[in-house]
């Protein structure tokens, strides 16, 4: 097996929250004991609801925020050992694409300038060459060179997100973190971006982490998936086997919450109640308050990731999680 491109061990991030200047501070564990390996050209999906810590994880992986514990290695070098000069080289090989394409683009610069900027900032070409590279990259995301001189406000949301992707990929990075990169887009535009990302991945030497709460989209974009709940990985495995046979009750709930296009599946009771409850994460399984399968052991003993079939699941009752019914069976 290839040596991992990206490796995280025991990654943890704690935020200190204070409700007022004199209030006692509370520690909030956003990311807790996460291990992750990513081989060159591998694609992993990080799935979780808002508050699951998925964005924090993405920022930790790119060294944009320092971990409270644990380490991240890229190409064998730990972020903690990187000197300022090394960071520049690291930044050239990595990229982050965030959710809101309008605020990610400078309204005062044309899209051509913004894509080219990345090239000449790293002194990889002169301005003329940078512009040519930008044009070629924009072409690859399906934006013709005629659009180079447009400003962001003159484009549709889908076009803007493609510009953001072009800017992220113009330096041929080896690792990109997509953080909710398509979530704000219409379904029809999401489909365009999915097609572009799939074709770009074919052409490039690119590994990526795709962070999302949307289980429908991520499926067509990654090889592996890790499901996050309150900062912990509760299930991870090959995308197809997790979707076909989720082993964690939370994964199953997420999958069965996705509305289906089958009009016979109507008025389906929600699979879980309530919201994420960060207050209850201290001991035991964090999901137990919402879990239909919870038993006493779930409160006393924190479940660890263990191997089941091809994947890993952190659930005492993984063996008792029922397979997802086919849509038609659910009608009855």
């Amino acid at each position, binding site marked *: 097996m290839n040596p991992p491109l990206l490796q995280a061990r025991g990654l943890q991030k704690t935020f200190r*929250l*204070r*409700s*007022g*200047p*004199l*209030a006692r501070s509370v520690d909030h564990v956003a990311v807790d004991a996460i291990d992750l390996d990513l081989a060159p050209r591998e694609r992993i999906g990080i799935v979780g609801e808002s508050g699951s810590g998925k964005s924090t994880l993405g920022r930790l992986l790119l060294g944009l925020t320092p971990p409270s514990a644990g380490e991240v290695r890229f190409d064998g070098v730990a972020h903690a050992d990187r000197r300022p000069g090394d960071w520049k080289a690291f930044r050239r090989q990595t990229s982050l694409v965030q959710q809101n394409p309008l605020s990610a683009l400078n309204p005062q610069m044309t899209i051509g300038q913004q894509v080219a900027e990345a090239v000449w900032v790293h002194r990889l070409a002169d301005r003329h060459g940078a512009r040519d590279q930008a044009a070629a990259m924009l072409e690859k995301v399906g934006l013709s060179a005629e659009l180079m001189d447009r400003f962001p406000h003159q484009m549709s949301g889908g076009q803007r997100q493609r510009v953001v992707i072009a800017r992220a990929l113009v330096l041929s990075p080896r690792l990109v973190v997509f953080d909710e990169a398509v979530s704000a887009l219409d379904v029809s535009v999401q489909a365009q971006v999915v097609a572009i990302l799939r074709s770009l991945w074919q052409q490039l030497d690119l590994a990526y982490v795709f962070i999302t709460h949307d289980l429908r989209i991520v499926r067509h974009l990654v090889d592996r998936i890790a499901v996050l709940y309150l900062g912990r990985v509760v299930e991870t495995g090959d995308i197809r086997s997790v979707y076909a046979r989720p082993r964690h009750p939370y994964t199953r709930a997420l999958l069965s919450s996705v509305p289906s296009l089958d009009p016979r599946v109507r008025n389906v009771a929600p699979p879980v109640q309530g919201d994420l409850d960060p207050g209850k994460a201290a001991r035991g399984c964090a999901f137990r308050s919402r879990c239909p399968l919870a038993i006493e052991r779930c409160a006393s003993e924190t479940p660890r990731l263990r191997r089941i079939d091809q994947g890993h699941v952190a659930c005492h009752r993984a063996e008792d999680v029922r397979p997802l019914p086919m849509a038609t069976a659910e009608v009855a």
Partner: protein
Amino acid sequence: MFGFVLARLLRSLIVLFATVTFVFIVLRLSGDPAQQMLSDIATPEALAAFRTQWGLDRSIAEQYLLYLANAFQGNFGTSFADGREVFTVIGERVPKTLSVTVPAFLLTMLIGIPAGILAAVRRETAADKAVMAGAVVGYSIPNFLLGVALIYLFAVWLRVLPSSGSSTWQHAILPVATLVLAGAATISRFTRSTLIDVLGQPYIAAARADGIPEREIILRHALPNAAIPLVTMLGFGAGGMLGGAVFVETVFAWPGLGSGFVRAVNSGDLNVVQAMILTFTAFMVSINLTVDILYAALNPKIRLGNHDAS
């Protein structure tokens, strides 16, 4: 909320203390007050006598500690110029300054805020354009030019108002008008843009969809939100009034802190300069404190933090 106020109060005191120290040191290092007061032809003996009289022959550290000890008891020394207590000198001038700036500030709010609201609510109409045209005029003419222009118009040409002095209430009209014109221009522009911003928020659309009358939407839904940034701006406005007072009092020969300050600086009256800076700082710090508290009181996100109230 109590903790919040306490923390801000503490911070204000620290700012005051730091100002005292900073001003003291800078003033001692910026020239010899004896020379300045007694002029170049003073004999060395006269200079020495002056220094002994005012304690200027001691080390700066010693002078500083002495000054602090006295200041805590409300004793800021005596004026080099006329030998009167600094406290009395300032005490005479503070009410004069307040009698111009307080009415000016109240009028600024009374004119600026409603004008801004009118312009925002009647956006793109003649009313909006009139308010904004007025604002541009008030905004772009500097204080001192405006003061001189007003003197020329009302005192010299029309001869309906006195141009300088402070003996009657009519004397206050031109200085107040000068301050209000500039202040109201800023406040009305800011009120307008803030309110327009708030009126574009989704919760306003939601209130409209709920059939709430437009008047109530403005008064109960939009204004409380617009008030939050506006309070900060009014704080700047109040601070600006004090700064403006320095110009305006000089132009109109109004015997307040501003003109007194200019005089004390020119004559090198160290104790007076120092105490006046402290007074200005105290005013600014109280304005900031008020703004901070009002800001938190108006904004539940600051007042309560993010935690679920239950």
